[in-house]
């Protein structure tokens, strides 16, 4: 019995240590953000006079409102389109299975592990030739393409797992392929689509490399990309930088806290299937 208690104690301590280490950077960022702007405080120390207005200053310095709108419009440009395209393709590969579909699937799979750095150079020249550099489309369009391997793989897996009796019954009732898709399969695909939407939203919001290469103006970037520019500009003013970094990760944090369970489930399924 005592041995078990000892084991429990050690386990709890280890678990607590991991918690502390996970949360430590955020705590340090928070206390630093409250120090007087322009000073060089110690890592984790509570200031005598917390400077809450640092957050307001950082908000204005980074033009946070504009960045937030920009990031939101990029997400709105990417996620719904990517979901529609992937659902159609997933339905084709998982259910309709046209001749040559296997080859098409293999082509998608080939892109599943592609590092973005592998295509970023030609992507720059391609976007330049489309005259889209420094517009939000420079981020939106490539991201839709880059998400296809994972998104199609994801939706195909969903449609594959659907029982075939369902479609047969609908066919006997005279449903066309489109009706079968729209009336029967799409409503049932909602959980898969929700999870995919969550994943694509996180990835888009946090996209960095595309933003810094293809868009110069931070106000037309994603949140992550704008933070990169903010660091370049205010890197020497540690409290202000800390406040800015915290502000930039807040929106996603709030959404995470609200939809916590969905997030965890989506991330888990996402990596298992990916």
């Amino acid at each position, binding site marked *: 019995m005592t041995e078990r208690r000892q084991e429990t104690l050690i386990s709890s301590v280890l678990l607590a240590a991991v918690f502390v280490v996970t949360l430590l950077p955020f705590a340090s960022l928070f206390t630093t953000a409250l120090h007087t702007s322009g000073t060089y405080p110690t*890592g984790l120390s509570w200031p005598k006079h917390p400077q809450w207005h640092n957050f307001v200053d950082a908000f204005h310095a980074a033009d946070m409102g504009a960045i937030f709108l920009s990031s939101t419009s990029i997400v709105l440009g990417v996620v719904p389109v990517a979901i529609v395209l992937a659902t159609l393709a997933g339905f084709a590969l998982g259910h309709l299975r046209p001749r040559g579909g296997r080859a098409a699937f293999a082509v998608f799979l080939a892109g599943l592990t592609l590092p973005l750095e592998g295509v*970023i150079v030609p992507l720059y020249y391609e976007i330049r030739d489309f005259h889209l550099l420094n517009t939000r489309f420079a981020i939106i369009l490539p991201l839709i393409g880059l998400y296809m391997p994972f998104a199609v793989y994801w939706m195909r897996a969903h449609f594959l797992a659907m*029982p075939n009796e369902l479609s047969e019954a609908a066919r006997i009732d005279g449903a066309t392929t489109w009706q079968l898709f729209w009336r029967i399969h799409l409503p049932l695909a909602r959980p898969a689509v929700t999870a995919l939407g969550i994943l694509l939203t996180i990835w888009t*919001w946090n996209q960095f490399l595309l933003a810094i290469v293809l868009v110069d103006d931070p106000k037309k970037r994603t949140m992550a990309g704008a933070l990169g520019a903010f660091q370049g500009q205010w890197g020497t003013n540690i409290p202000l930088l800390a406040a800015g970094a915290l502000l930039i990760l807040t929106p996603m944090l709030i959404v995470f806290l609200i939809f916590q369970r969905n997030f965890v489930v989506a991330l888990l399924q996402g990596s298992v299937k990916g």
Partner: protein
Amino acid sequence: MIQAVNTATDSAPRRALTTRARHRPSHLGWLFLIPALSVYGIFVLWPILQTIRYSFYSWDGVDKPQWAGLRNFRAVFTDPQLTSTLVHVAELILFFTVIPVGLGLVLAAIMQRVTSRRVTSVARAVLILPQIVPLVAAGIAWSWVLSSSGVVNQVLQAIGLRHITRAWLGDFTTALPSVGLIGAWVLLGLCTVLLSVGMGKIDASLYEAAVLDGAGRIREFFAVTLPSLRNEIAVCVTVTMISALSAFDIVYITTQGGPGNATMVPGLKVYQLAFFNRQVGLASALALVLMVIVILCIMPVQSLSRRSGDE
């Protein structure tokens, strides 16, 4: 028994595989496929082909490209500035993959045994947090934690280790391991949660059998837990290796590849070569080598997990 668990998870898609193919409206399927294939083709496949093409040229991005043959590739494998990026990335794999998977296994085993359900769900939420925040924000936070007046040095000073305090990301010997530890921080939670979900699915009778055979905790772990988790481990290794090989955001924010060349990784080098040094051909050759390395690293892991599924 273990095999039974594996095949059980596989049976659903298999059933779908045998009963479909009764009617295949063949051309219609392609109509559903074409939109996705076109964006994928324009923004992924075409750029991949271009990367391959550029890598055989010497090009500054403006003037006419000059044929360079294999010169760019020779540089990737002989120029110390470039070969070192490949060495660094190999070292990063140790941190990004080995720590999260190893420590993740231990933590998952602990969460399995001690904690109540409520603690487990809170633990999952906290551990998954680094996956939600942008790597850029994590990078800024960590460069502050590891700075000369950061928390790490604060703690070291408090426990009497003042003499080893330093600017961890600015020191030639500690910069790369520090970047590696940041990556481990990002990925540990994901691996832990993935593995603990996997452990939850292991058939309890396997453990009962092990106990009847007189196995202790440790033997039980190696005889039952580890083999049952083969697929989950393969997933963790794949995900973490890809993020080590394509590391960019964290390095860009924390060190810019420095001090000197100490933390330069292929992803950042491609970016610098192409957009600052105007050596587009060389950048493309390095990018191509990186893509091939990713595939070479992932393939054995994938075939390992697939084999275990077919047994």
